[in-house]
């Protein structure tokens, strides 16, 4: 019997972990990454002849039936949340169901690109980073308008494509706000096992918020330290709203601004510091009310206009005016200097 190295044993273990796609229209290509709840594989959609990503739920390595059911519910919810968010900045879901080996999966667009935290060093100028940030705000603002909070915004959950397209990923911790519960889509008719699994999940009758608190009940802390809001860190699930995501966006902006270059310097301008501080205020009431407000302030900064988060003094205002109209001011100054010099020009 041939000796198997430790590496070979691990690869065989991982290979044995591969989903059985028999009976589906997908052909497995390779394992891409491991997420919080399952493994993401690249696969070929044989019908539409395109590459897609499959997220397959792994069962935990224990006998906790309740935990298993909860994980199934989470993955299903994630796929349904994504299905209702059709936006260029949010990865679209194509399909969901149960594999022949019994595991739950959903198929989504295959994203080619790099994580924001991996690519950020290649994007030096501050304006470029701010424009990236505005695209993230677009996607998150859209989700909020559909009543969905992300709850785990961080650089690792943002992908940047080869053409600069930005995708907000990993909506596994997303929360659907109560006002939008009635509009939550039902499972598709073909995916009967999904409907069965959903009905088996522990829930009270009615509201999504109740179901949500079963999944992330008060006191449970889910998110990433450094990026989750104080109320999220305290496990106050019922208090979470759009402002929690705004806190995370502020932390993301702070991350983007580290090492960013503006006018040959890496020193952070005060208006941007003020924007970060307002977004990351300890109390939600002191933060921006909506993602659109945060994005508007960043846009104003990029346009050389005053931002709501920062009160300029006279000198700063004059300096901003000068920077914005620098060429025109220099031209007029040149004209005036020329005119003054001509006064002394000897006339023939």
């Amino acid at each position: 019997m041939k000796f198997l190295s430790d590496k070979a044993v691990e690869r065989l273990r991982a290979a044995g972990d591969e989903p059985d796609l028999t009976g589906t229209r997908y052909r497995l290509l390779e394992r891409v990454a491991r997420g919080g709840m399952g493994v993401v594989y690249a696969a070929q959609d044989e019908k539409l002849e395109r590459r897609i990503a499959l997220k397959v739920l792994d069962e935990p390595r224990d006998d906790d039936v309740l935990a298993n059911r909860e994980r199934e519910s989470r993955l299903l919810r994630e796929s349904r949340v994504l299905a209702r968010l059709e936006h260029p900045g949010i990865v679209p879901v194509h399909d969901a169901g149960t594999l022949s080996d019994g595991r739950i999966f959903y198929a989504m667009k295959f994203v080619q690109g790099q994580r924001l935290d991996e690519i950020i060093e290649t994007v030096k100028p501050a304006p470029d980073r701010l424009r990236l940030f505005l695209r993230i705000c677009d996607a998150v603002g859209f989700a909020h308008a559909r009543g969905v909070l992300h709850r785990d915004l961080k650089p690792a959950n943002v992908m940047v494509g080869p053409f600069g397209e930005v995708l907000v990923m990993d909506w596994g911790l997303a929360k659907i706000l109560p006002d939008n519960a009635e509009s939550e889509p039902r499972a598709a008719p073909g995916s009967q096992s999904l409907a069965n699994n959903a009905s088996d999940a522990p829930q009270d009758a009615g509201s999504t918020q109740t179901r949500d608190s079963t999944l992330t009940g008060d006191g449970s802390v889910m998110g990433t330290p450094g990026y989750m809001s104080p109320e999220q860190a305290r496990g106050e699930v019922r208090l979470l709203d759009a402002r929690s995501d705004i806190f995370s966006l502020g932390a993301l902006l702070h991350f983007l601004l580290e090492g960013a270059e503006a006018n040959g310097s890496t020193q952070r301008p005060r208006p941007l510091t003020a924007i970060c501080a307002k977004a990351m205020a300890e109390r939600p009431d002191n933060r921006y009310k909506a993602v659109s407000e945060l994005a508007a302030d960043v846009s104003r900064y990029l346009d050389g206009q005053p931002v709501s988060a920062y009160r300029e003094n006279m000198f700063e205002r004059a300096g901003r005016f000068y920077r914005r109209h620098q060429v025109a001011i220099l031209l007029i100054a040149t004209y005036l200097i020329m005119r003054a010099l001509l006064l002394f020009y000897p006339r023939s």
Partner: protein
Amino acid sequence: MDRLCQAYWKAVYKYIRLRWNRPIDDTQDLTQGFFVELIERSLLAKYDPAKSRLRTYLRVCVDSFVMNEEKAAKRHKRGGNIQHVALDFTSAEQELGTAAIDPAAIPCPESLERFFEKEWLRSLFGLAVEELRDRCEQEQRGTTFRLFEAYDLAGDDSVSYQHLAQDFGIPVTDVTNALSWARREFRRISLGRLREICGSEAEFQREARAVFGWVPK
């Protein structure tokens, strides 16, 4: 029992060598003696899946057996009526990789379980790979097995599907399909062998989840 012995004997051998620091000859005797003891005293009948995993139980039995042997200092031949399974101790010793045991290499108590599990898994997978090889030979799928060997058994991260396609002169899709088939068969064979050495369905499910992270339905 034959299957169980095949799956566990190397792990038992290496465990005794490392944990009990026995010379090679003694370890060979102890390994054979343990399995004879397992049969003669029907130790498996006393195993309760609710209390622990089978390999944990076996490891504890090994410890108990070795301690008892030390006390009794017995070295006589056993098991005259029991069919012997040929055990390749030479290969097991080579795999262990040491001529003399370095005390620093002895795993700490917390990792003994992991070591035993790893060696058991190595044996189980090794047997499954051999069975897969035989199956591929019978079904004239030699290329499939060679691809499986080159990609999944070699443990070389630099090898890609494209490389294999070039080396074998076949399209990348064929590489993908072949590896997919081989892995599916490997998994089926591994789970089949696992089921043979588990005493109940519940135990099998637990072991399958521990090995592959999920349970086939």
